[in-house]
């Protein structure tokens, strides 16, 4: 593919802190290489802003190789931008063309308050995990990982669910700001494996209770989450979550 450079107009959400009202500001970014990632493009813009004595745009990022789940942003209405199965850090500027006007907003949901500019707090996800998204392990000698037989199908499905990086794009994409895809991935991952069995029922009930407490909306199965998920987590996990929840509540002692 031919490399090219472009001039862009960026309409970016600026918000000083969690309490203040935010607003959009428009910036011109010149000579953007098609080989830059979206975050590198913002790095360039930030250097320009700093050189002029302005405040750089705050945004979340960490590994920049698509596996940590830290980067966020809604680009032209799409969490992580227009490419399928891609995080913002792996979105490259060849997705855009010269003269494009790009609107960049933070993930928006009551449960994800904006900390600054494009950074949101996703601590609600941490609290959901703390409520049950783990397995308890006794101390002692390490157990041989291969000692426990697991059906191939289940191992595959559990692995696919475990690919969730907890970035929150599902919440950002959902018209109800629902966290069901995230919770369903975490519940499925452990419910399919023997290691998750002892805490299986308590886990799903507690995680859903925490999810409701955090103020996420409820799922109406539009499946926008699956379409936007950078790890392409399947909505069939949501059906499994519903089954797990029904089973856990109906058979509670």
């Amino acid at each position, binding site marked *: 593919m031919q490399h090219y450079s472009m001039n862009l107009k960026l309409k970016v959400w600026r918000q000083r802190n969690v309490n203040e009202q935010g607003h959009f500001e428009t910036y011109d970014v010149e000579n953007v290489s098609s080989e830059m990632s979206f975050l590198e493009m913002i790095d360039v813009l930030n250097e320009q802003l700093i050189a002029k004595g302005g405040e750089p745009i705050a945004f979340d990022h960490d590994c920049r190789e698509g596996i940590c789940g830290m980067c966020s942003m809604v680009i032209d209405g799409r969490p992580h931008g227009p490419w399928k199965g891609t995080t913002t850090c792996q979105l490259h500027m060849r997705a855009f063309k010269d003269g494009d006007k790009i609107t960049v907003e933070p993930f928006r949901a009551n449960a994800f308050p904006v900390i600054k500019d494009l950074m949101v707090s996703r601590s609600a996800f941490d609290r959901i995990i703390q409520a049950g998204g783990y397995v308890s392990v006794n101390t002692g000698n390490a157990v041989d990982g291969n000692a426990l037989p697991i059906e191939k199908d289940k191992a595959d499905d559990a692995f696919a669910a475990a690919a969730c990086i907890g970035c929150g794009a599902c919440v950002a994409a959902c018209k*109800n700001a629902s966290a069901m895809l995230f919770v369903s991935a975490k519940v499925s991952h452990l419910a399919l494996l023997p290691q998750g069995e002892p805490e299986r029922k308590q886990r799903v009930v507690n995680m859903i209770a925490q999810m409701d407490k955090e103020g996420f909306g409820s799922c109406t199965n539009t499946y926008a989450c699956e379409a936007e998920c950078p790890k392409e987590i399947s909505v069939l996990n949501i059906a499994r979550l519903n089954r797990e929840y029904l089973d856990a509540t109906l058979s509670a002692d």
Partner: protein
Amino acid sequence: MNWSQIFTSSIGKKLVMAMTGFFLVVFLLVHCYINANVLFSNPEENFNRAAHFMGSNILIRIMEIGLFLGFILHIVQGYKLELQNRSSRKSRYAVTAGNKTSKWYSRSMALLGTLILLFLVLHLVHFWVPSRFGGLTDVQYDGKTYHNLYAQMQDIFAVPWVVVVYLLGCFSLSWHLLHGVQSAAQTLGISSKNYFGTIKTIGIVFSIVVPLLFALMPLFVHFGWQINTGGVSLLF
């Protein structure tokens, strides 16, 4: 952990929508089956006899109360969820993905439901109220007296704008079901890798066939069309 969470948690509220939704789908099937009499030969007698059975059978009259409760629960819970879901994102996006990531009808269930509700009120005033509270003429078959509900249909559907409103009602119902059937299966946890495609197909077929049959009824009555079955009574 206790079972009452089934109705108070976010998943529980959806379960109520899915279960009442499926119940209403069963009602639609019965309603469509009975009313399909008007599409065939001798519609007046066949339909009036069928309507008489539905109106006089004690089990069906008891079910009618359940049906009203099902409707009310589905409507009230639906609006409550819609309000709650809307308020879970107070700060709105400047740009949204729209149809790129989801179908418009899956995002518009409350709107489609409202259109169906408006239609339902009109429909009850047209047929259910006169059936239950008087206002129908009588007709005799084999020396027995029946309400002539078919004559009421002819009166109502003689007016062209009423026929158009009924057709629009059927359109709304079709879109509502197109999302609703597979969504209810997903909420009840029936969907899985093996059945996802089958459930979607069943949902699509149901949401096209049933509203289409309903849509044909006002058209057939308005234009006096019928499918000739050679005097044999079909369906009932």
